[in-house]
């Protein structure tokens, strides 16, 4: 084996909040999930498969959060996803049959038709509507290291009830085991949020490693000798890997970074807003509601208004993704070379990203990742990809240091999830935690209905704790939906709490909540009891 100078750990963090509305035939926010499958999860899977078949060696770390696991294994949502694919396929077939537009437009429509047919083949035929089975196999073949997350992407430092904190980790592990057939070695802490004490919970649950933002490691105590280019261990032996600030910048930034290249697909110009309303009715939404269809015909072009965008050129875009991958590798090699000069061991460069960036926000992101992994394996004599467990096998001795409280959010701390717009949520979460533990410990032999109600309270509590709601309230996108959601879970919890205490359960309501907020079908309310 060639003597490489450093390791690259790419981490793709895959997460969406649990959104399921069986009470509505079409529900706009469910499309977030369908778009992520169409643009990110399936294309990435197809890329990984292609690399595997080509014999490319690569190692990539991927978190798949428990809400996402729940949605990807939900039969109603998978049925609706099939409908989503089918409607786009019929739209594209009909458009191509009608033979409208110029040659360039026809070519783009044909590209989309091929693409949706491929997605449909992988989803429906190859994976039998079980997308996770594909990723599981790649993990068994040692291309992926899949890790779990706090149960509902909760921010543990903002949950001061020790038992609820533990449950967030325990349920996250349980959800993972049921799908991937073994315990997770690592965890993604929701929003990379850490504060002292979390390391003990991770250790008690057999977690070996996690990721923090740069300052979570740089400000650790004592000061880490290697900065973020080697992990640190807590007293309990949990490894903390810190984000490399340089590596992520090029990819993250929409303006200066790769995703802003003029050849790439324009995100904001979608045929869903442009086709005649009859077609919207027919293919997208029976109520005539316009929203993103996922079929976008134009490229970024330049700093021009949407009506001045030029048509998308797929070949050119793919070529650009390859050029960007070259540039990324060049920078990583330079960095590794430089670090090796000042370190007495090979550096590890950790670059975590939201998976949805690749494909959803940056359409060619999966092509970039594919090209990157292929080129590193084939051509780079300086860097190789590695997962944290494999790195820790090579370097089992690391510095003892306690990480600093931090998140990877704007500002680096908790202000995004916690400010004058959304701080009203926390007193409720606090009381819900107390009430949950109170009833879980008090009620030892419930009848079936009470038991179901108690377990549903657990689901409502966990769902209310998703960091997504407070995040979206702060950013102002889907803010009304998020406020409604968090209020709904608080109210549903408190309603059930009162009904359990009065021993008068509204069975229709309970059934409705079980159907709608059906995350973690395996949950047992006894999980909330404190360990004596």
């Amino acid at each position, binding site marked *: 084996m060639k003597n490489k100078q450093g390791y690259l750990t790419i981490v793709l963090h895959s997460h969406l909040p649990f959104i399921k509305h069986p009470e509505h035939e079409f529900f706009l926010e469910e499309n977030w999930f369908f778009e992520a499958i169409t643009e990110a999860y399936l294309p990435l899977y197809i890329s990984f498969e292609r690399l595997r078949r080509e014999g490319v060696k690569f190692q990539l770390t991927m978190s798949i959060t428990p809400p996402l696991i729940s949605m990807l294994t939900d039969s109603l949502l998978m049925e609706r996803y099939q409908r989503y694919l089918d409607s786009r396929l019929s739209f594209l077939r009909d458009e191509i049959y009608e033979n409208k537009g110029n040659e360039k437009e026809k070519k783009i429509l044909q590209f989309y038709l091929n693409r949706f047919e491929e997605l449909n083949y992988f989803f429906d035929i190859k994976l039998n509507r079980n997308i996770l089975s594909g990723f599981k196999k790649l993990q068994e073949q040692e291309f992926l290291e899949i890790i779990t997350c706090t149960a509902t992407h909760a921010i543990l430092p903002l949950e001061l009830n020790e038992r609820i904190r533990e449950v967030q980790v325990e349920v996250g592990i349980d959800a993972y085991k049921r799908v991937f057939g073994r315990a997770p070695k690592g965890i993604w802490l929701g929003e990379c949020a850490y504060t002292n004490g979390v390391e003990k919970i991770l250790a008690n649950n057999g977690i070996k490693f996690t990721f923090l933002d740069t300052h979570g490691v740089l400000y650790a105590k004592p000061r880490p000798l290697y900065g973020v280019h080697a992990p640190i261990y807590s007293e309990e032996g949990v490894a903390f890997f810190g984000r490399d600030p340089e590596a992520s910048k090029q990819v993250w930034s929409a303006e200066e970074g790769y995703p802003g290249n003029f050849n790439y697909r324009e995100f904001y110009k979608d045929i869903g807003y442009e086709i005649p309303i009859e077609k919207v009715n027919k293919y997208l939404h029976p109520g005539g509601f316009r929203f993103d269809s996922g079929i976008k015909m134009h490229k970024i072009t330049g700093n021009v208004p949407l009506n001045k965008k030029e048509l998308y050129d797929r070949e050119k875009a793919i070529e650009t993704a390859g050029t960007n991958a070259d540039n990324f590798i060049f920078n990583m090699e330079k960095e590794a070379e430089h670090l090796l000069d000042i370190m007495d061991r090979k550096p590890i460069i950790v670059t975590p990203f939201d998976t949805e960036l690749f494909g959803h926000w940056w359409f060619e992101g999966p092509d970039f990742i594919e090209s990157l992994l292929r080129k590193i394996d084939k051509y780079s004599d300086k860097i190789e990809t590695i997962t944290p467990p494999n790195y820790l096998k090579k370097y089992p001795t690391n510095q003892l240091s306690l990480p600093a409280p931090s998140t990877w959010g704007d500002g680096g701390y908790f202000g995004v999830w916690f400010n004058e717009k959304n*701080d009203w949520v926390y007193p409720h979460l606090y009381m819900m935690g107390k009430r949950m533990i109170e009833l879980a410990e008090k009620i030892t032999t419930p009848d079936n209905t009470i038991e179901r109600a108690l377990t549903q309270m657990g689901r409502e509590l966990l769902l209310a704790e998703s960091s997504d709601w407070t995040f979206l309230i702060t950013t102002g996108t889907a803010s009304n939906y998020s406020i*409604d959601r968090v209020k709904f879970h608080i109210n549903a919890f408190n309603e059930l709490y009162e009904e359990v205490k009065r021993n008068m359960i509204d069975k229709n309501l309970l059934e409705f909540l079980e159907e709608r907020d059906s995350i973690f079908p395996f949950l047992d309310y006894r999980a909330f009891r404190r360990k004596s």
Partner: protein
Amino acid sequence: MNRKSYDEMTKKELLDVAKRRGIKGRNKMNKIALIKAIKLKDKPMQKITKSEEKIKKRKLDVDYEVNHLELLPKEPGNVYVHWEIADKEKKTDIFLRLINKGKMVLEIPVASDKGKGYLRVEEGKPLIASIGFKKRKRFVSIVSSEEILVPHSKPSAKKTIEWIYVNPDTGKIVKKQRKVHDKKALKKKK
């Protein structure tokens, strides 16, 4: 999301809904029969709507009528506190204290029933909040918070270096004074 009522829908749209509801013989029905059949199928949906309304109409609990006090970290030098005092015999002169390792660092008079607010504090310190009243000049606590660590914004001044070896298979931990990278080297040292 707003939806058209069935009466506003075209026959084609109704047929589409009927198809999704699994209504048999729909192609032979006229508009009125279609609407009737769909509405019949919708009965369980109405139950759902009622349940949904029940939760949506519920007002958020204003008071939980339990003493509580929570201190949360926001960012370096900034914490948030919220509390509720439900005690029957309400005291009038209530104070909030912040305590660092047994030492009071802040004391302010606060509302005696409930409240919330952001406080400036020193960064990097563990803190507990306590709410209470004064009796013969002594502070009597009614409720205290969990301890939190206020985030800090600087690297640690502590530079001592200690290494630990974690066996990748067993998880067994060995503390080392000097760094030893791999198992083989560790054995050699022994």
